[in-house]
């Protein structure tokens, strides 16, 4: 250890020394004990709990996941610059929202018309393949967000549109007419803008600055198509 400390520190050397010249002189002698603690922050606590999640009650497990999902819903409703959505991604929320949307948007199977609203599978496929396409596009443009993080954000930001669909269904119970349509249009436009703002708040930072618009435009198209499906829904 003493040799290594002295060799790079020689002042006034005229000839240029090769890089790392003193490295070969270092030897760890037997009587210097190497000891200490290697701690990796933020990980050790999870490892400690690993064995005990088997012993906890089912309610604890379910409530923990539900709380995580609920926390992310709150983050979507009040979009702030926080990393929770990105760091601890999960796909429960997107699945629940997508299934709700598809169940409510599907037309009845006893419909005699050939052309009508989308089927359950069509809505499901549009949402998931749309999200996958946007994620691939964002990664191909050079963004540094992971695949599932992006899917998570896009799925969670469908929440305002699901709320819009619920409101539209309630409004449609009233008398049909132009006022009915204008109310629905207004609600859908507001929720569409909310979705865009929420998802851009999370996704735009992961793109290189000269390609932000290229990455955000497909998100706009995606939510526009979903909003169109919600607006044109007739029971």
């Amino acid at each position, binding site marked *: 250890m003493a040799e290594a400390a002295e060799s790079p520190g020689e002042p006034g050397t005229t000839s240029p020394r090769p*890089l790392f010249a003193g490295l070969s002189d270092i030897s760890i002698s037997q009587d210097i*004990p*190497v*000891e*200490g*603690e*290697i*701690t*990796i*922050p933020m990980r050790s606590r999870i490892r400690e709990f690993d064995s005990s999640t088997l012993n906890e009650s089912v309610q604890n497990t379910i409530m923990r996941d539900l709380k995580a999902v609920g926390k992310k819903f709150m983050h979507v409703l009040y979009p702030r610059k926080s990393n929770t959505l990105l760091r601890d991604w999960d796909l429960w929320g997107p699945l629940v929202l997508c299934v709700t949307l598809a169940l409510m948007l599907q037309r009845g199977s006893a419909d*005699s*018309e*050939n*052309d*009508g*609203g*989308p089927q359950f599978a*069509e809505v499901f496929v549009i949402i998931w393949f749309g999200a996958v396409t946007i994620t691939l*596009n964002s*990664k*191909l*443009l*050079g963004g540094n967000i992971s695949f599932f993080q992006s899917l998570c954000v896009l799925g969670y930001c469908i929440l305002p549109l699901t709320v819009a669909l619920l409101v539209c269904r309630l409004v449609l119970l009233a008398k049909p007419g132009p006022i009915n349509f204008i109310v629905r249009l207004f609600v859908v436009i507001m929720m569409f803008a909310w979705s865009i703002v929420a998802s851009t708040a999370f996704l735009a930072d992961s793109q*290189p600055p*000269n*390609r*932000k*618009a*290229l990455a955000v*435009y*497909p998100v706009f*198209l995606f939510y*526009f*198509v979903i909003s*169109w*499906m919600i607006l*044109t*829904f*007739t029971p």
Partner: protein
Amino acid sequence: MAAVDDLQFEEFGDVATSLAANPDATTINIEGPGETPKRLGPPRGSGREEDDELLGNDDSDKTELLAGQKKSSPFWTFEYYQTFFDVDTYQVFDRIKGSLLPIPGKNFVRLYIRSNPDLYGPFWICATLVFAIAISGNLSNFLIHLGEKTYHYVPEFRKVSIAATIIYAYAWLVPFALWGFLLWRNSKVMNIVSYSFLEIVCVYGYSLFIYIPTAILWIIPQKAVRWILVMMALGISGSVLAMTFWPAVREDNRRVALATIVTIVLLHTLLSVGCLAYFFDAPELDHLPTTAVVPNQTVVAAKSS
């Protein structure tokens, strides 16, 4: 004895910030060939030469050296496909502007694409066009049949898939056929200008951009307005295509060259007129849907009874 702090992992941050803090430190550059021009080199756009001098000459040297090695990743890696999306926002806007303003004598490929064809533009312009046509068709039909009592509005979701098939098939199969044809003619006649498959796909993709505002304006239920829009859109995008491909067939036999250009424009016409006819109902034929709906209702009544 090593303290706990010495063994913590340390974030060294960006290469640029570390270099700024310690300019004499040696650095090892292990970046791939396609990545350096993106991050350190000046943007490869039209008319940005002043940036070259501002950023220093070594960066432009690097981009020139590495420009020839752009697509060196094997095709099963992700980086290979990233080279097709190597465009910035202003480059996409420039290419769209170039497709809207065909200037005779200015080749779209040479001026805007400049051996950097991208797949971003064609893919997302086609996607937008698919939804624009489907949604505008739906809206226009709704507005035309607004006053009728027997008309029940349906979102006609099936038409989205039909529109997608048509537009994506046109944007990929026609360039493929054209590329094969040009390759065949190149083996017979020495042509000065030859385009790669991706450049042809790029031209076709960007030339479809004019149809997006056209499809939205097709909502107006006047036959004359619609046909004027068709003529204008066809004129602009047809001339972009004709002016791009004329240099590629110019040296060939006169008849073959003319036939190629005429076929390109004809296929383009077919696409636009076909979309107009299929997705948008004619505005004057209001009485037809009522007679079509009534037999449906009698059939439904017969089924339910």
